[in-house]
């Protein structure tokens, strides 16, 4: 058996002064004290009608309309004070029920076709659809639900203690240089030829070499493995450094040895 029926069967319809009201009295009369609770129990007129039909085995044909209407009207009176919208819905339902009843009572004109619209059909259809959704809702609620019936595992990701360093691409550098050029518009002073870059790279290297030793023999600045091109570039770098007064070139009178000396006095301090 499904649990929806079970749970509904054991739940009191309402509580009056703490006492559970296990079922709606047969005469459909709801004590006025209980009405408020009673209305909370039902989702609306459709829900109430469905309950009455199911619980009391009412055939929709045999609904004691006078009583039911009276009952509904009583709710409406109560509700008008606070829940006007809900009252309207009960009122609408009452009107519908009365319409159905009256149509059933009136003699059926034979001129209509066999397929004549049954005034109950639409209501029955609505009741059934509502009941189906009501059941589905209860079933959904039975499904295990995250946070209510289980918890999702979530272990902390221990972030690095070391801050992540920004990445730089070659494009970033080009872009940066381009923006400098764009700002400078005419970049006379800093125009550099393609070859000059390698000269400048070697200038850095010569300065590094000289950082290690106070002074070096000229030839020591050239790596034995250097290619001809590298020798030329290194030589140009030395000349450029001399021109920029970054190093001093001197020759010993006796030994004829050429010395290269950094004029960087600061670093030796």
């Amino acid at each position, binding site marked *: 058996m*499904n649990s929806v*029926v079970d749970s*509904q*069967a054991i739940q009191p319809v309402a509580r009056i002064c703490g006492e559970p009201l296990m079922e709606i009295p047969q005469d459909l009369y709801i004590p006025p004290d209980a009405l408020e609770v009673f209305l909370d129990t039902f*989702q*609306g*007129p*459709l*829900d109430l009608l469905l309950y009455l*039909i*199911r*619980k009391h*085995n*009412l*055939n*929709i*044909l*045999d609904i004691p309309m006078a009583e039911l209407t009276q009952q509904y009207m009583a709710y409406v009176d109560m509700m008008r004070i606070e829940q006007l*919208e*809900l009252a309207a*819905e009960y009122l609408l*339902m009452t009107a519908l029920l009365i319409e159905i009843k009256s149509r059933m009572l009136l003699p059926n004109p034979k001129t209509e076709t066999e397929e004549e619209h049954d005034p*109950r059909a639409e209501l*029955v259809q*609505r*009741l*059934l*659809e*509502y*009941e*189906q*959704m*009501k*059941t*589905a*809702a*209860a*079933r*959904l*609620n*039975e*499904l*295990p*639900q*995250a*946070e*209510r*019936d*289980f*918890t*999702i*595992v*979530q*272990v*902390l*990701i*221990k972030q*690095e*203690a*070391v801050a992540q360093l920004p990445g730089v691409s070659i494009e970033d550098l080009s872009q940066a240089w381009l923006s400098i050029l764009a700002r400078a518009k005419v970049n006379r002073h800093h125009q550099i030829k393609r070859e000059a870059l390698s000269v400048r790279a070697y200038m850095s290297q010569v300065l590094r070499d000289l950082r290690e030793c106070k002074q070096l023999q000229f030839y020591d600045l050239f790596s034995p493995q250097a290619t001809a091109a590298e020798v030329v570039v290194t030589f140009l770098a030395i000349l450029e450094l001399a021109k920029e007064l970054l190093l001093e070139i001197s020759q010993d009178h006796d030994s004829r040895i050429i010395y290269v000396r950094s004029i960087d006095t600061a670093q030796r301090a």
Partner: protein
Amino acid sequence: MSVRSIPRNELETLESLTPDKIAQILEVALLTTQEPLPISELKKLFNHELSTAVLSKLLYGIREKWADSGIELISVASGWRFQTRPDMQPYLDRLTPPKAPRYSRAVLETLAIIAYRQPVTRGDIEEIRGVSVASTVLKSLSARGWIEAVGHRNVAGKPALFATTSKFLDDLKLRSLEELPPLEEMKSLLDSGENNQNLPLIEPETDKE
């Protein structure tokens, strides 16, 4: 303090990862991520060098490994995730008072109508329930991430059309809407009145579908 020991560009290539290590990485990813991880996402862990078949096999292996523990690896609509077994929840509730709301019947019925009849407008829901639907009902379901407006019906007022989300499926441990409990055929109301003393309220009729 832990310092990054493996620079990103020097990660071991897949060949050097043992199957155990691969499973370990998968496991850690699933243990640390609250949202379910689809296979497509898990592939990123290995620079897309592992096939769906291999990953699935590993995932079932991990699931097997945890079979006797308090957590389980499951597959839901949006992917795979670890969650606690239901019998653990009462203990966990002692640590933190349950935060998930207990939904009212109004909310549950609205949710059911959206789940089974989607996409629907508020008007459709009201039509079925026979009462107006409070905005708070729709808001609480939206806030939970279970429903969303997926469009508007092209009628006067352009009412929003609501549907359930994949988070709704995830949170209910479902892989698709088809896994929702099947709708029951309701007992006809017209031939009640006969023999229904014992109230077979929702007895499914087998002859109809």
